[in-house]
């Protein structure tokens, strides 16, 4: 029997009933880009481009490592990019080029080799 089945059968985002420690009462002020990301989600839903359900599935399909290590809106924006590629609304190349262009606007952004 495959030992990896549980990774497939149980979504990395499902938490109900798992063992967990105390609740840390963390609150953070939402960064402007996070609010914009949330606004983008609402707009994409209204336009029927990416529904709430598609967004949920998009985040789930990032897999356990990314779900565990990326923060909430980081997961959303990566999921949106993937879904927009799947729907041929954007291409990976044009997003990569646009990201370079946006990064270049700020003098201090590091460019990864």
């Amino acid at each position, binding site marked *: 029997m495959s030992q990896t089945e549980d990774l497939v059968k149980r979504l990395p985002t499902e938490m109900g*009933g798992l063992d967990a420690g105390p609740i840390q009462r963390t609150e953070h002020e939402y960064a402007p880009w996070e609010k914009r990301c949330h606004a983008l989600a609402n707009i994409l839903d209204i336009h029927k481009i990416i529904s709430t359900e598609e967004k949920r599935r998009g985040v789930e399909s990032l897999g356990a490592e990314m779900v565990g290590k990326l923060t909430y809106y980081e997961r959303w924006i990566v999921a949106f990019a993937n879904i927009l590629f799947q729907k041929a609304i954007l291409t990976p190349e044009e997003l990569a080029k646009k990201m370079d262009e946006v990064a270049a606007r700020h003098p201090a952004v590091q460019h990864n080799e």
Partner: protein
Amino acid sequence: MSEGSGRVLKPLPNVVKAEGAEPIFKAGDEVTISVRFPVGHYRVPTYIRGKRGRVEAVIEPPAINNEDEGFGRNAGVKRHYYRIAIPLTELWPKYAGSKNDGLRIEVFETWLERN
């Protein structure tokens, strides 16, 4: 829904409803949550599968199956969600709180079996 009229119209005879339009279950029905393992997307948490509960309410309006919707389907047959009551003692064998404590959760019609 008009507040003032107080008059409920009766359905016309010989009008057949669309598939899924009529809820299969009603408040008070005893049900069991199905056990299956969809790959890729689901909204029925693992912890309630196979558990027994009671329908508390039918939720309107009917909706597309969210497992399909997750992959882009946005049209087709709509069915109902139901608000299901499940005692926490049914979910967790070692539950230490009051035996009256319970879960309320919406479950899609395709995941419910009549007891």
